[in-house]
């Protein structure tokens, strides 16, 4: 089963959460990333996400596999939007189930952090002043 998905359309969280329900799990942690109206002190009007889908799929799946290997969790999912998004829209969702909360929180954070750092998805921001541009952040030093 695929645990990481790119979604060209808005998606519902409830069915994803349901996939994580498990008698062995006593904890569920989730993260939602929303499109906000500012970045680096500039007013943002909206944005577009583009991906290299073939590689984003496999790298995203690898990240969730790594989370399952590294943390004492039962299961995890991650869905990332692509396409045009308005302010307030859900951009990315991570859900994790585990026997206990510590592992659920830790794995949830791991998945969103690794997704932001490794999955080939790019954000094109449109600013309120009419300018627009791609975000290519300087990656953190390799550890």
């Amino acid at each position: 089963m695929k645990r990481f998905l790119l979604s060209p359309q808005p998606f519902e969280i409830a069915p994803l959460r349901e996939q994580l329900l498990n008698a062995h799990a006593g904890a569920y942690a989730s993260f939602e990333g929303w499109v906000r109206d500012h970045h680096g002190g500039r007013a943002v009007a909206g944005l577009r996400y583009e991906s290299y889908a073939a590689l984003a799929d496999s790298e995203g799946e690898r990240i969730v596999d790594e989370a399952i290997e590294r943390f004492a969790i039962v299961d995890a999912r991650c869905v990332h939007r692509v396409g045009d998004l308005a302010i307030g829209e859900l951009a990315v969702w991570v859900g994790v189930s585990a026997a206990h909360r510590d592992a659920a929180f830790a794995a949830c954070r791991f998945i969103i952090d690794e997704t932001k750092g490794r999955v080939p998805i790019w954000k094109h921001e449109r600013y309120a002043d009419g300018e627009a541009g791609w975000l290519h952040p300087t990656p953190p030093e390799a550890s």
Partner: protein
Amino acid sequence: MSRLTVLYFASLRDAAGVASESVDADSGDLRGLYESLRERHGFVLPAQRLRVAVDGAFAHWDDAPRAGSEVAFIPPVSGG
């Protein structure tokens, strides 16, 4: 001479004006291929800030270009 397809994303695509193109690689490695395309299209990002993928999997800059393959230059990502 290896004829292959290169894919551009985000700011690289904007600078190149195309999402992909067919090129003849006469360089010994993928780094050299990027440098020649950087010169042609005026890419701002140096190879050190990019990753490179071949046929849908991350590759190494020292790898030799293979005829018929699909090479993707991956600018710093900004999902999430």
